């Protein structure tokens, strides 16, 4: 069966390619680079490359990398998801209700991208293969301009300008850190206040009763005063001057003067 045979060789090629790639995933410049290399295993003109086969090879490559627990950048996984989608579009008959681009259009664009990247690689190589100044041809070794008159010319480029402007602009973003202090009831204040109050707290009283009147209304101020009053109470308990209790989670916290001592 020639078909089976084709399939087998394809699979073999894909396996070989995948193995070759997985060894050295670091060396690749992104998923397009991998696809370009995989497409070479098809040994055809890039214009006739089978995108379906390519998608399969790529998915195998990603699976293989996962199996070997090789860390793949997100780009590779995005491409894998996209190729899986493309594959399903290419395999399924086109849905007339579907408005998006057809599988063929998407495949043609990917083929174009690969061909363009390949073309740019070759162009870069040809460029670097050209004669270069300072290596193959040379400038005048001894310049002969005799200076007579000095003229000052001011030089500034766009980058200087931009950097100057950015400097001014970023200055605004970096104001020195300062805290908004007016809504903070400090622990020191709370302790001071509690020490004055505990003498009269012979009965159990709720934490909220100990807050200063002015700090009970605005939610921000109340939060701050509650926290610092509670912390001050703990401090006094530690010193053995107060008792504190709570029957269950979120139940009111109560405290009173420690009587015995």
């Amino acid at each position, binding site marked *: 069966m020639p078909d089976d045979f084709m399939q087998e060789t394809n699979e073999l090629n894909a396996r070989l390619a995948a193995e070759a790639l997985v060894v050295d995933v670091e060396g690749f410049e992104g998923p397009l680079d991998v696809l370009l290399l995989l497409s070479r295993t098809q040994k055809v003109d890039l214009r006739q490359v089978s995108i379906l086969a390519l998608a399969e090879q790529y998915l195998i490559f990603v699976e293989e990398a996962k199996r070997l627990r090789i860390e793949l950048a997100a780009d590779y996984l995005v491409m894998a998801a996209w190729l899986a989608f493309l594959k399903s579009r290419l395999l399924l008959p086109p849905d007339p209700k579907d408005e998006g681009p057809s599988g063929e259009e998407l495949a043609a664009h990917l083929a174009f991208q690969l061909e363009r990247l390949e073309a740019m690689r070759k162009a870069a190589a040809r460029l670097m293969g050209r004669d270069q100044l300072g*290596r193959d041809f040379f400038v005048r*070794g001894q310049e002969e301009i005799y200076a007579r008159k000095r003229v000052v010319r001011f030089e500034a480029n766009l980058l200087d300008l931009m950097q100057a402007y950015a400097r001014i602009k970023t200055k605004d973003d970096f104001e020195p850190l300062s805290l908004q202090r007016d809504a903070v009831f400090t622990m020191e204040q709370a302790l001071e206040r509690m020490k004055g109050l505990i003498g009269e707290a012979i009965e159990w009283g709720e934490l909220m009763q100990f807050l200063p009147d002015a700090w009970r209304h605005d939610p921000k101020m109340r939060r701050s005063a509650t926290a610092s009053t509670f912390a001050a109470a703990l401090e006094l308990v530690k010193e053995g001057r107060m008792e504190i209790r709570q029957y269950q989670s979120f139940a009111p916290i109560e405290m009173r003067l420690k009587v015995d001592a």
Partner: protein
Amino acid sequence: MIEEEKLESLFEAPPMGEQERMVEALLFASAAPMSLMEIENRLPHGCDAKEALLHLGKRYEGRGVALRRIGDTWAFRTAADLGFLMQKEQVEVRRLSRAANETLAIVAYHQPVTRAEIEEIRGVSVSRGTLDMLIELGWVKLGRRKMTPGRPVTFIVTQVFLDHFGLETPADLPGIKELRAAGLLDNRPPPGALLDEAAEAVDDQDDMFE
């Protein structure tokens, strides 16, 4: 206006042979390429530097030193086939990374090109240092903004780039005609990208000014 013309005729321009000598001396003495305007500013009044350059170029054809046109500028450079004699003058040409090579080629062949276009062609994001380094080498510079939504900045190659690779103009880049004919220099958006782009354009608009 008439006054000016009278003034000119008072100082007759030197004969063309003499003008050619002058341009020869000027360009020979300078390592940096000179523009037509720079040359003309140094020549006596009434000289035709363009014509003189034409004669000069012919005279040096096939010599060990050649008159080269680099963009809008001119310079003498040694003939490339004699590079093997110049080990002593050779400066170490920094080998660029593959990413830098590709980015440079893309800027040269697709210019003016935006950063997003470079990334689209390479299929990876352009790392911070790459464009920076090409700009620092003096091979790439900022071009005009693109007249597309968001008016993104573009990158183009410089005269220093042309000089380095012995190119008269970007149109002399190897294989550029074939690439263009094959449609490989087209900016072909991915199918179905129109919607995305419109959305992006709106975002870009915000980025324009801070």
